[in-house]
């Protein structure tokens, strides 16, 4: 702290004395929420970038969980001390976008650094999620993931299910889950993490049905939730029925249910592709399949939408700092860096070149299933139902949905009652937040 103070005092004195750009290194803070192995990746990226050049210095600072990091960034902005770069999770995207003037679009930052921002170089599913309706990319996708299906091959074997072909539709998943439970292969057939992200937001995109009006909020303006349409009601009623018979087990609002799968209690799990590391580490005999879709939906499967986090740049910084950030983002998007990030961490590659490179290297042949989340997202050009969901208060709306899902799974409400209530409460909260 004192050193930074002294240094900035020194920089100030130098610039006053010579009225010329200071020679000192420009320090750029990068606030993030990565723990464990992912934190090592952050530290290593910063170190490699700092060693490669001497003008800028990226300083990664761990700020706690995703919501904590976002709050720290907001508080710092209010105190006029924001970092240059902040990692914000997917549902915080709407919050950041609303803060025009507080953030500087990444496309502009890159251009300020002398780089041309070329949309076509990036994975379309990811870049459209982090862009304004007019196509300006607002934040830099750092860690993106997509929900997939995991299954326990030993349990499948015991239940007499096809070990090499995981179920592709929800109806088939539910049937397989019943078979697992009834045959006694496992005490529970199916569980899922993130009912909001997987069964609501991705369910909408993957089956090409609207989540809300106004292109799921991406078009801006008035937004009304559409998640009590018959297709959602049927889907959730099926899950509620399974829960009643103990075939489906609820784990919690975020990724707690992963534990139920890892412990062998449930035979099938839907989870983020980012959860792969833990599944591999558990040493179980697992298989991966694509996210199931609803076969009654026309055109399904469409494409999934990314979860994870992106890097935002705060406004009000100097040109020098923006140049540094541009250099860093340019470094991050280089093919070898991206390819390595993707292969080591299980995140999706951000650029097409990194994806091609990984494919050419034979990585997907050696690691079957690792390409699934990318194919899901890239299979088709996104429609207005599948670019993503963006609400000014998505974290709050997710909480309201979770509340109703819990009441429904506890048997207090039918799917229709729960979804109607979620829509009503969600719409009221959206109006309040706008």
């Amino acid at each position: 702290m004192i050193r930074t103070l002294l240094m900035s005092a020194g920089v100030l004195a130098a610039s006053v004395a010579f009225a010329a750009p200071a020679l000192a290194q420009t320090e750029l803070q990068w606030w993030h929420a990565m723990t464990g192995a992912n934190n090592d990746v952050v530290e290593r990226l910063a170190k490699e970038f700092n060693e490669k050049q001497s003008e800028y210095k990226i300083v990664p600072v761990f700020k706690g969980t995703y919501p904590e990091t976002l709050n720290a960034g907001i508080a710092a902005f209010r105190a006029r001390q924001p970092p240059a770069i902040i990692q914000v999770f997917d549902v915080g995207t709407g919050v950041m976008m609303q803060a025009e003037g507080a953030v500087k679009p990444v496309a502009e930052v890159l251009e300020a650094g002398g780089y041309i921002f070329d949309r076509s170089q990036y994975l379309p599913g990811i870049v459209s999620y982090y862009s304004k309706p007019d196509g300006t990319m607002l934040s830099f996708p750092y860690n993106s993931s997509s929900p997939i299906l995991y299954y326990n091959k030993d349990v499948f074997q015991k239940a007499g299910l096809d070990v090499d072909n995981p179920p592709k539709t929800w109806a088939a998943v539910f049937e397989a889950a019943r078979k697992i439970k009834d045959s006694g292969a496992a005490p529970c057939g199916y569980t899922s993490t993130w009912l909001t992200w997987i069964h609501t937001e991705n369910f909408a995109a993957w089956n090409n049905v609207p989540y809300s009006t106004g292109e799921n909020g991406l078009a801006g303006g008035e937004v009304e939730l559409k998640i009590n349409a018959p297709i959602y009601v049927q889907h959730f009623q099926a899950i509620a029925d399974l829960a009643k018979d103990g075939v489906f087990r609820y784990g919690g609002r975020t990724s707690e249910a992963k534990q139920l799968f890892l412990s062998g209690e449930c035979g099938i799990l839907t989870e983020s592709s980012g959860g792969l590391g833990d599944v591999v580490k558990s040493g179980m005999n697992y298989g991966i399949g694509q996210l199931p879709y609803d076969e009654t939906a026309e055109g399904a499967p469409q494409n999934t939408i990314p979860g994870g986090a992106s890097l935002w740049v705060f406004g009000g910084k100097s040109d020098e700092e923006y140049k540094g950030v541009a250099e860093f983002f340019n470094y991050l998007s280089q093919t070898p860096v991206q390819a390595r990030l993707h292969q080591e961490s299980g995140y999706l590659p951000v650029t097409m070149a990194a994806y091609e490179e990984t494919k050419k290297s034979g990585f997907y042949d050696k690691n079957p299933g690792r390409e699934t989340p990318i194919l899901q997202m890239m299979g088709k050009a996104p429609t207005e139902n599948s670019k993503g969901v963006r609400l000014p208060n998505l974290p709050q709306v997710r909480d309201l949905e979770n509340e109703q899902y819990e009441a429904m799974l506890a048997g207090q409400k039918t799917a229709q009652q729960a979804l109607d209530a979620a829509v009503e409460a969600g719409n009221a909260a959206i109006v309040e937040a706008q």
Partner: protein
Amino acid sequence: MPKAAFPNKILPYLLLAPQVLVTLVFFYWPASQALYQSVLKEDAFGLKTEFVGLSNFSAILSNPNYLSSLQTTLIFSVSTALLAMAPALLLATAAEKVVRGKGFYRTLMIWPYAVAPAVAGLLWLFMFNPTMGTFAYMLRAYGVAWDPLLKGDQAMLLVVVAAAWKQISYNFLFFVAALQSIPRSLVEAAAIDGAGSTKRFWTIVFPLIAPTSFFLLVVNTVYAFFDTFGIIDAVTAGGPARATETLVYKVYIDGFVNLDLGGSAAQSVILMAIVIALTAIQFRYVERKVHYA
């Protein structure tokens, strides 16, 4: 009353200064900020601020979720206070009867008080979480449909037990002190008159420790109201379906997760009024009764 006089005119103010400063920085300043914020409507980044008068308050008070949170808080606080006090009294009377190793026994009893709320919460979570808890597994093996992730009453039970468990030590200490201050002669006289131990307890001991019990009731209620955030955050995060969302937890959720700063500040102002009322009750009734004891 004779006026106490300090020879030095400045010294008393200097001696007071640290305490006043601490109160100013940690109470008056944040409290005034909360008051100010509670009449504003502002986006998270503070880019647009609008004066809205008391509309944050009227919005809260007409919100069914807030009223149900108030009810949840009352149920939670009363249950926690009772569950924290009854076993403490039982243990304290038992501790009185211990002949050897009294100190050791008491030390063990006081231990849980040193555990941080979040840690206490995690401890109980690890035992009873349906996905990984040992006891949850055992309960299910015995055919109990244990699932606090979906069943609100079970979730409430879990946080009440965790919150009360931590507070038992504190109550134990006070009850031990209260029991020791009861004159031996009174109890012995009753015994000579033929009163059994149950009768002695209800007719002599219990009325004499009543002021302590009342004091503890207020302290425990305040504790359950305001110091259990860590436990609730760690164990249930307010769920399922808001079944354990207390007023304090709601302030956090609305302010820091939902980023509704005005509404959250208004709720904290209401909470501030509740604390002031509780403290006033404590001073007015408890302090007066202490003389009697």
